[in-house]
């Protein structure tokens, strides 16, 4: 085997209408190496993977396999060239047997259709290569997710893959399963495979990767040698420094404000430790943390979208029952979810209906005229750009959809807004508008929790900030202690922020 890289990307560029998804990315991958790819949502990881595996063709740049330039017309060609991708939720068929899944669409032939015994034998051999010994006739779905991942890897190896792309392989695994998968990955590395590992959990990345490449906004920020870098440096690269336009917020609460939200020892799925949350009228609390750190889970537990196991949530002095969104909305506590399209917008309902839908209980009188007046007023106040209030909301741009969601809740006159990544995936202009709106609302006495991956945004919008690390709230920063360094440190290493 040559000592050069198995796979080398040079200057890969990919444009989609209106956005440059990848801008001149260089990346190389050596045999016997685990190369981690990290970055926040929208950094370009998935686009890069799609180019590597032949789903997309690059608009510029070159892919070299063993030094020879290649172009993949489709995923099948990439697979034939020896590049296999294992996705987070791979295309596996849980009802079919392990052997069927291993040999799907390439079953060994016999005199009468499939030669089952040959398939079983070859399945056992393929599984042995990844250290598995399973009953290959059992349904794949009856095995734990980690085993299913390993079966997918076994299939890839059986297809003579030399480069493996693991796309968040541990995302749906618990800690023990994740550890066993990492051990298997390190075993594959020892056998000379070249592995791209995409992940969010820095602990895992630092445990398994030889090199770490950080992407941000479609650009490569840098490639780090694992033993010569720190988590702090990687997180800084992911979230971006040098964007310090200075704090805009004073961070000093003006006078004694009334407390509107009081969460105590809340516990539930997705978080490893109980947390408290306090919010005063007119206050904006930033919630910072990497993907998967538990930001969304925290908001969902507070809002009742997810049922909490223990703890209490009080809004304006009234206790909220667990897992009851309606009660939260009635009390004035509302959530705009991160997944705007799948959990927020009603794509086939009109802008008017999308705005009016949450305001009234069932059987309350409704009038189109009043709804139109409400929607019209909101559209003007939030400058929602739509041709017509009767237009389907699904056709709006991301920024306008986000404003429609905000309008929906503002129509209910809430006390507390829980905003999960309200500016993600929307254009710069809309981003600033949403930020300004949150500040305006706070000035009018509304309280908000603002989740964002962009730390500069948290510094610009929020009065205080809490940091999450590994599914725990690790720090609360306010006043002079709230600065970028402290925030980055808390997010990256789970340390309590720089105290006073």
């Amino acid at each position, binding site marked *: 085997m040559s000592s050069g890289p198995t796979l080398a990307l040079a200057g890969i560029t990919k444009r989609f209408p209106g956005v440059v998804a990848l801008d001149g990315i260089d990346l190389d991958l050596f045999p016997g190496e685990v190369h981690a790819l990290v970055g926040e949502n929208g950094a370009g990881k998935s686009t890069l993977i799609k180019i590597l595996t032949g789903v997309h063709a690059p608009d510029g740049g070159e892919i070299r396999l063993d030094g020879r330039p290649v172009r993949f017309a489709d995923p099948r060609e990439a697979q034939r060239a020896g590049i296999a991708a294992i996705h987070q939720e791979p295309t596996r068929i849980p009802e079919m047997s392990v052997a069927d899944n291993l040999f799907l669409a390439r079953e060994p032939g016999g005199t009468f259709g499939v030669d089952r015994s040959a398939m079983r034998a070859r399945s056992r051999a393929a599984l042995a290569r990844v250290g598995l010994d399973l009953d290959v006739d059992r349904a794949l779905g009856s095995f734990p997710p980690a085993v299913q991942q390993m079966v997918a890897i076994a299939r890839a190896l059986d297809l003579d893959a030399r480069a493996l792309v693991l796309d968040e392989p541990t995302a749906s695994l618990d800690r023990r399963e994740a550890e066993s998968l990492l051990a298997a990955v390190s075993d594959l590395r020892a056998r000379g495979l070249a592995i791209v590992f995409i992940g969010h959990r820095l602990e895992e990345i630092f445990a398994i990767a030889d090199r770490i490449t950080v992407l941000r906004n479609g650009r490569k920020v840098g490639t780090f040698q694992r033993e010569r870098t720190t988590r702090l440096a990687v997180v800084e690269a992911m979230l971006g420094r040098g964007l310090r336009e200075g704090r805009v917020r004073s961070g000093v609460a003006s006078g004694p404000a009334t407390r509107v939200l009081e969460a105590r020892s809340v516990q539930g799925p997705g978080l490893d430790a109980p947390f408290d949350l306090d919010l005063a009228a007119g206050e904006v609390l930033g919630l910072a943390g990497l993907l998967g750190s538990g930001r969304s889970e925290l908001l969902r537990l507070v809002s009742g*979208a997810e049922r909490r196991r223990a703890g209490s949530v009080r809004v304006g002095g009234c206790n909220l029952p667990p897992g009851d*969104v*309606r009660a*939260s*909305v*009635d009390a004035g506590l509302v*959530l705009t*979810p991160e997944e705007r399209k*799948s*959990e*927020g*917008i*009603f*794509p*086939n*309902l009109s802008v008017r*209906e999308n705005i*009016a*839908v*949450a305001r*009234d*209980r*069932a*059987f*309350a*009188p*409704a*009038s189109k005229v009043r709804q139109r007046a409400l929607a019209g007023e909101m559209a003007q106040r939030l400058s929602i750009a739509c041709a*017509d209030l*009767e237009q*389907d909301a699904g*056709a709006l741009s991301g920024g306008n959809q986000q404003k429609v969601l905000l309008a*929906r809740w503002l129509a209910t006159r809430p006390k507390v807004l829980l905003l999960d990544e309200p500016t993600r995936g929307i254009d710069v202009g809309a981003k600033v508008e949403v930020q300004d709106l949150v500040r305006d609302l706070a000035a009018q006495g509304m309280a908000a929790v603002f989740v964002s991956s962009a730390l500069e945004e948290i510094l610009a919008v929020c009065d205080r900030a809490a940091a999450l690390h590994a599914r725990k709230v690790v720090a609360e920063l306010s006043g002079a202690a709230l600065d970028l360094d402290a925030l980055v440190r808390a997010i990256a290493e789970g340390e309590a922020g720089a105290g006073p």
Partner: protein
Amino acid sequence: MSPLGRLLRSRALPAAAALGLLLLADALFVPRFLELQARDGRLHGALVDILQRGAPLLLLALGMTPVIGLGGVDLSVGAAMAFASSLAAVLLTQTALPEGAVAALALASGLAVGLSSGGLVAFLRVQPIVATLVLMTAGRGIAQLLSGGGILAFESPGLSSLARGSFVGLPIAGLLVLSLYAATALLLRRTTLGLHVEAVGDNERAARLCGIRVGRVQLFAYGLCGALAALAGLLVAADVGAADASHVGLYLELDAILAVVVGGTPLSGGRTSFAGSLCGALAIQALSTTFLFCGLASETALCVKAAAVLLAVALRSAAVRAAEVRA
């Protein structure tokens, strides 16, 4: 948007056009089809017949509309008809309950069938087609057990006048159904309920996060559907003065689903059109009445009906495509 533009973009348009074209063809080619005669203080003729004979189908289509709008479907309505009519027949022949009480109990039985399907869908998260298939099988089974497998004849002047009587010359059954359409449409359009139904049908997760009590909306829709089906069963049984558990409402659920879908409520949910369902059901009934009028064999009638449905669906799809091009 101009009134004309709104009319052209209405979901009910293809069904209304189909109904209109059918009646126009009848007027041109079927002698005396549109003729109305006043006899014994009531009107007679094919048009009156469509309204009266079509009443059960119209009721099923009405109840089915919010259910399909939710993204569900109710296959149990035919069985609910059989159940309610058998129950009414048994109560009338074997107890001394007054007719009003019998009718109320029969309606309650339909409500129970509907709430059972709704409960399976809302709380056990069973797929609507499976949940209502269970009730479809169970409902007809219970109906047959109740009636002992045979046809139960009964006498009920009150119910019979509901099914066959007339008011200012028009059939009471037809008037009742039309007023129920108006009432249901008002209830759903003039309260937030209609929007909640469409919101759940369009994006159930988002509806939950909006604070819409999805389970209650589902219970309401399936319950209403079951109660209306029971009323349809009462009308059918009272019309002939007997309950036939094996045949009342058989396959009628399919016609009702057809009427709703032709009427512009998409099977995937998210939108409802009561006017469309009304026109769709009327068109299906008008087709049957036309065949009867022309003396067409029922086998031929089925084939012609299939062709007509295909045409209506194709019209709808062409309309949808045109709307997409405009957007």
